[in-house]
């Protein structure tokens, strides 16, 4: 009961302070020239972390209207992250390997 009250107090404090709740980070792994998922649904403000677990370089980019971006080349063993701060459905691809396709739906 005490912790519930404490939680409410903390939540109220943040609301008063205009602070938004923490956003989630979704992990996508690139392995064997594939994304480990073909489609994900996330919330606005969430980030997607792309981990290159392959032995070759990859790229992450999107040409979807309203959310075009290019995260450049990610070498083996590195990761890049992208915050999705717009609602919509976006196609994310590796420009180098066109068979790598991921749809990100942001609600």
């Amino acid at each position, binding site marked *: 009961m005490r912790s519930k009250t*404490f*939680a409410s107090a*903390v*939540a109220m404090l*943040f609301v008063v302070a205009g*602070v*938004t*709740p*923490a*956003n*989630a*980070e*979704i*992990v996508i792994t690139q392995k064997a*020239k594939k994304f480990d*998922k073909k489609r*994900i*649904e*996330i*919330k606005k*403000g969430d*980030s997607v*972390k792309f*981990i*290159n*677990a392959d*032995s*070759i*370089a990859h*790229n992450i*980019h999107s*040409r979807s209207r309203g959310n*075009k*971006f*290019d*995260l*450049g*080349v*990610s*070498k*083996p*063993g*590195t*990761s*890049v*992250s*992208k*915050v999705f*701060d717009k609602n919509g459905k976006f196609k994310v691809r590796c*420009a*180098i*390997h*066109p*068979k790598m396709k991921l749809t990100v739906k942001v609600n």
Partner: protein
Amino acid sequence: MGVPVCNKNKLSKFAITMVATASAFATFVSTTAISAEKKSREEWKKEYVRPSTIPFPTDNPYTAAKADLGRTLFFDPRLSGANYISCGTCHNPSFAWGDGLAKGIGHAMTRLGRRTPTILNLAWGEDLMWDGRFESLEQQALGPMSAAVEMNQNMKAIVAELEAIPEYRTLFNVSFPGKGITVDNIAKAIATFERTVVSGVAPFDRWIAGDENAISASAKRGFDLYNNKANCVACHSGWNFTDSSFHDIGLPDKDIGRGKIVPGVVVMQHAFKVPTLRNAVERAPYMHDGSLKNLYSVVEHYDNGFVKRPSTSNEIYKLNLTQSEKTDLVEFMKTLSSKDAPVALPRLPAYDQTVAGSLNVSPAAGPSADSGTPSVQKGSCNTFLMHYIPCSK
């Protein structure tokens, strides 16, 4: 959400972290340790087993009648504006479905900007053409046909032209009951035929299947180099010896390739489709610009002959191959040739003999001479379907 979620904040159940969403902080890069895979020869061999079936899309499934019709269309020069260029003119089965030229030649002897790619094994392809502009074989089939510098066919006229040939009416009605001759069905038939063009069993395949005498010791050493020191496998992977990827391999020409299709992505500048290595011996010269005359030259290019620029592929680096290693690599690639049986040309449907008429074509004339076809200057880009010539837009 149905996806793994990493909660960054584990210090407190109620702790809340403010996440900056400004674009300047929207991306970041970190490094983690990933150990490189080391595989034995036997493990690598498992990755090169031939598939047992050809994939066909659900919206254009295989039928024998459709494949036969596509084969007839593929070799019929009447699909070009001046009626003298067929798909098979450039994709000549005697050259392993290429043309043996450094750069293709199109309508009115127009020299094209890139080498003619083979159509071998395109059933497994993705984003077709050197620059990947077409997502399907159905789209691709119409590209060269309608490009003014290639086959220069007026696509508004092609249906009527084929309708005037009685046997084509029959063949289309058999393959597409109730629909007959349409531009889409022309594309579907040609694409279906193209998917059946698969390289045959080569000495390499017999080795993979267990025949140790199928290839030489030098070729086996070449296979080991291919998958390790020479790093060819980074892109030319799997039974078809391509992963359909795009790379700038450091050829010193001005053609930016996929950079036109995917502007703004640095690594796509000067990037081109990784071609299959199947039957490569029969398909010289090499590269998108036809600048390398034989496979030894290709190996030397990758060893130390490339230019380094911001877009150069991460997989391209100095290899320090010895002369004998280069020879082994070439010997290995030679084992990929299946020496397929000669391809018989189809008998082409005859014109209607029951009605009077004349053909309004002039093979000696340039693109502007064909009725209804817009003129185009060499090297320009007034159609999105243009095949080889880099667009200036």
